[in-house]
């Protein structure tokens, strides 16, 4: 019961929010849900397999790009499906070379990949003579909010439910020892590709939704590495091995950013850096890990 309390409190609050809050708080809520969906998807790959991605913004950015290209030609559901499926396909295709490296090399590779895609999109756009794209007749804020909530729930449920599946157990075995995992029959390469694809799909949809929210496409913005860093920060600050961690991490960081971002953006970035170091050194199990470990001890 206590286990699921954070889920109940959190999702209860975000369901009530649209009925009681104004535009400002709704947009804060949207941001919060976005970070939760992104971090949960990230942990599907990085939390389970131990392959730490520092370039998850690439999927967010590609989702946004696909939305910018297809909006106006396709209905909303098709735009979102395209962003999700497109990213799944892209990620599974690049996973074969990308997932051959481990540890710090993988971290650097994912970061580099995101930058490579960013500059490629910039080159394509400028070759096409496009300098930013504007989207018209976008869905209402409320529609986007409910959709984002839906995908945050899906991402959270997926990270939780996958643990008891064969795929989830295989991925955990890969995290522990890849060669041994293969020795006991885990199809390592296929599973890693699948995890990479799954962890890319929801960020694609999230990117598309946020594109429809901001209505202005600019590669520098949607492929901003800060998005990747923030995902990792939320995961570390939230902590814990299960899907409750990102809830705590996202609430904490979003509140902090609301307090500082508008008034002193530099202070916020410095603070985020200090917090990250602080958590890694003093509280590696994160807020959630600490909270529940203490309860368990009592």
């Amino acid at each position: 019961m206590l286990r699921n309390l954070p889920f109940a409190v959190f999702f209860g609050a975000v369901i009530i929010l649209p009925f009681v809050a104004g535009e400002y708080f709704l947009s804060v809520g949207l941001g919060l849900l976005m970070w939760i969906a992104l971090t949960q998807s990230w942990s599907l790959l990085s939390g389970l397999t131990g392959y730490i991605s520092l370039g998850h913004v690439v999927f967010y950015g590609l989702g946004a790009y696909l939305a910018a290209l297809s909006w106006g030609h396709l209905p909303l559901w098709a735009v979102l499906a395209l962003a999700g499926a497109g990213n799944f396909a892209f990620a599974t295709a690049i996973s074969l070379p990308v997932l051959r490296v481990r540890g710090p090399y993988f971290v650097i590779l994912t970061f580099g990949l995101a930058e490579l895609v960013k500059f490629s999109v910039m080159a394509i756009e400028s070759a096409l003579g496009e300098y930013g794209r504007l989207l018209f007749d976008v869905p209402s804020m409320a529609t986007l909010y409910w959709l984002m909530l839906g995908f945050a729930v899906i991402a959270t449920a997926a990270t939780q439910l996958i643990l008891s599946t064969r795929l989830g157990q295989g991925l955990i075995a890969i995290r522990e020892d890849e060669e041994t995992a293969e020795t006991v029959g885990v199809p390592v390469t296929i599973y890693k590709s699948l995890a990479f694809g799954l962890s890319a799909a929801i960020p694609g949809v999230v990117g598309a939704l946020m594109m429809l929210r901001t209505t202005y496409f600019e590669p520098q913005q949607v492929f901003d590495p800060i998005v990747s860093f923030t995902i990792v920060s939320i995961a570390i600050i939230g902590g814990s091995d299960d899907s409750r961690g990102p809830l705590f991490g996202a609430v904490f960081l979003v509140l902090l950013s609301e307090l500082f971002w508008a008034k002193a953006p530099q202070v916020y970035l410095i603070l985020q850096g200090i917090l990250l170091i602080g958590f890694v050194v003093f509280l590696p199990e994160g807020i959630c890990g600490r909270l529940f470990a203490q309860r368990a001890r009592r």
Partner: protein
Amino acid sequence: MSSVVLELRGVSRQFGGLRALSSIDLNVSRGETVGIMGANGAGKTTLFSLIAGHVPPSSGDILIDGKSILGLRPYEICRRGVGRTFQTVRPFGGLSVFENVLIAGRFGTKRRAMADASVRATALIEAIGLADRAQAKAETLTLSAQKRLEVIRAVATGAHIILLDEVLAGLTPNEVREMLGVIGKLQKDYDLTLLMIEHVMRALMEVSNRILVLHHGEAIAIGDPAQVRSDARVLECYLGKDE
């Protein structure tokens, strides 16, 4: 006890200029225990890596139940029925003993449902005497317990050919005795064919039906323990030549 489950035909493996194994022929029958001995660097572990598919042979063929396994990935070879332990233990350290065995059961030779794999895991953990440590993280176990865990993890896959790489090394004489007892029981209960690399000679002589002696990558002797013990080339390798 006559059907051949594992067959090596002229298997060689070259690492650059080093010939780690040259032209090994071996037939292993169902239910047999084959001991493998030889000095460090003789090619014993390389032989296991070839059979388990971690390293492809440079030439020759390896057959499991009459079918070649050349070109298969290790997980596919596991599905054909080969389980192995590692010379330096490699448990899934952050997972519990139970989870270690459970995962092997869910994958292994076929995809087993959670309940099925769970029953299997519990029985094996009980059999090897780790029941009271089932929920402990594997990395917190003693070396002897980790070795036992590796043995049952290999068996849990459903493999019928088990490659045991120095599972007795580093154990006290009492632990060796205990381990041999358990392995013998598992072999009977699960109808296993065993290949054992071992430096503990007395134990190896005792449990093996046949012994293969490797020296600089060559099979210098194969036969029952008594034969091997009196083989001139083996004595020469181990004790030196009488001048």
